[in-house]
């Protein structure tokens, strides 16, 4: 755009800048320059540096000429060091947690989107954890899981023998599940609100029609709710996979990655900021970014081919389809009733 300004200069510049065309260029440049600059400085330059640093052995403080070029060594380290690549396996816990969270959120959202007394209060309670900061959650759950404290007390009320309970944050058989649970605790409500929003956008007439025709709640869920929120559910499944790969806060604030709870990013953070092996940390980051970008690409493809009709902007089409389905359900229900 700036070049365009220069080319036009031989013509009367001050006249040109006051014309519509000149004003357009001016506003385009003026309005994009700052956000673009910020984007470059805080996203793309760091990204470039990350790729560059991943070939060097260096600290943050190493002067430029003292950095040692090591080629692909950092990358081979990422795959061979047990603490780096092994940490990716922990993502499986978080993926499992994310799926449990999704099912739970969908289930509770469905309950709450029908008439429920005090529904807003329940919704509020379940959503509030989302608004708490990471470190506050860290303290809350350190307290919650400490031996003989909250969780143990509750379980002993339920009849468990307190001495047979594991150490929730130290026992390597269970501690990752404890951390995953805090993550589910924190984000479940948010996801639920999301699903409630999606369910509410379904035409209320459909439910009424289905109700009149005697379709039960499960049938309504299967044939009205699920089809209409399919897109958002799929999107969230995919997002939860990339989110699980980059799981960070629960282990970082609660156990600081101790006792085998260090996820990939916790280890990366430690390597970068504590051991100052910046090159290795960059290689780790690049590896994960590549995985995430590939996932995102697959997601795009997936949506292109699976939801071709849903993606088309014809809202009435999907609504019509949902209505037809609802009618089918109603017919089935009637048949069953007779």
């Amino acid at each position, binding site marked *: 755009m700036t070049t365009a300004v220069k080319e036009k200069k031989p013509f009367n510049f001050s006249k040109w800048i006051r014309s519509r065309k000149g004003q357009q260029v001016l506003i385009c440049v003026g309005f994009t320059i700052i956000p673009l600059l910020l984007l470059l400085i805080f996203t793309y330059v760091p990204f470039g540096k990350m790729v560059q640093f991943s070939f060097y052995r260096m600290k943050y403080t190493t002067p430029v000429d003292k950095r040692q070029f090591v080629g692909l060594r950092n990358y081979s380290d990422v795959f061979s060091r047990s603490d780096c690549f092994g940490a990716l396996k922990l993502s499986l816990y978080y993926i499992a947690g994310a799926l449990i969270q999704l099912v739970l959120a969908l289930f509770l959202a469905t309950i709450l989107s029908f008439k429920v007394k005090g529904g807003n209060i329940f919704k509020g309670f379940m959503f509030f954890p989302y608004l708490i900061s990471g470190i506050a959650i860290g303290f809350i759950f350190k307290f919650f899981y400490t031996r003989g404290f909250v969780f143990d007390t509750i379980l002993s009320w339920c009849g468990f023998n307190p001495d047979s309970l594991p150490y929730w944050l130290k026992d390597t058989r269970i501690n990752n599940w404890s951390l995953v649970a805090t993550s589910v605790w924190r984000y479940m409500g948010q996801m639920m609100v999301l699903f409630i929003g999606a369910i509410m956008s379904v035409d209320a007439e459909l439910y009424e029609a289905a109700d009149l025709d005697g379709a039960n709640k499960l049938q309504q869920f299967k044939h009205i709710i699920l089809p209409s929120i399919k897109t958002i559910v799929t999107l969230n499944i995919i997002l939860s996979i990339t989110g699980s790969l980059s799981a960070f806060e629960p282990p970082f604030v609660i156990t600081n990655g101790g006792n085998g709870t260090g996820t990939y*990013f916790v280890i990366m953070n430690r390597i970068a900021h504590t051991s100052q092996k910046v090159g290795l940390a960059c290689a780790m980051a690049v590896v994960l970014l590549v995985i995430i970008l590939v996932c995102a690409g697959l997601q795009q493809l997936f949506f292109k081919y699976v939801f071709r009709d849903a993606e088309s902007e014809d809202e009435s089409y999907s609504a019509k389809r949902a209505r037809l389905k609802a009618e089918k359900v109603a017919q089935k229900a009637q048949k069953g009733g007779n």
Partner: protein
Amino acid sequence: MSTMTTKSGRTVSVGAIIWNVLKYVILVFFSLVAVVPIITCVITAFKSKEEYQATSVMTLPKSFLNFDNFVTAFTTANMGRAFINSVIVMICVLLVSMIIGTQLAYVLDRFKFPGNGLIRSMFLIASLLPAVAMQVTVFNIMSFFGFVNNLYGYIIMSCGTDVISIYIYIQFMENISNSLDESAIVDGASYWTIYWKIILPLLRPAIVTSCILKGVGVYNEYYAAQLYLQRKEIRTMAISLYTFVGPMGSQYNLICAGVIISLLPALIVFILCQKQIYSGITAGAVKG
């Protein structure tokens, strides 16, 4: 479980009644799960040191008027200062990201120029990159500019890594009819006037949405804050609790009081603008 009850109860029957009861049992159970960890913190925050050591964590404190822990936590963690810092950061970031976000969205949606698509995809890709990974080298940039341990440096970075609100604005822009602009142009309005007088007021719902999302994010931002705001006097609310990590690591009555203080502003805002928060969450997620 739900299948069992719904299968047997088609019309108003025993099954329907059981399902009605079960529904509330489930809701109460999950509400408790969500709230109990916080409630126990509240309980503990009102206990004196001796009381905390002598009683079980689930027994109620002698008095709910014992605010000593809150006062101690507030002063030792310097939470007054931290709250002011948080407010400063929030106001600046929200203001800047509102202005540059709406401007960018206006230009990207209304003008066709070379690079328009490129800019869009650059923002899209940026939204995919996890923040923690990026901080490895953003740290490098921050030290280059001397932004580490600087409140304004942190503010600039927080504005710079804001992508989601731009999406919300672009999405919303698409629904504002172009004919408004055109008739204004016929009347001789400049592009700036159109942006300032027509587009910005019409974008208000989107601004509310993105301010809520961004506000929650900024107030709670923990990782970047502890990386860049190490000096005590520039700590934000989310990291003022950091003070308790070392020497007071086991005085949970104090820590709990600190935790409660830190989430109080969020609680108040939540109670006051529940509706906007919910709709903000829903709108922010559809970006795809």
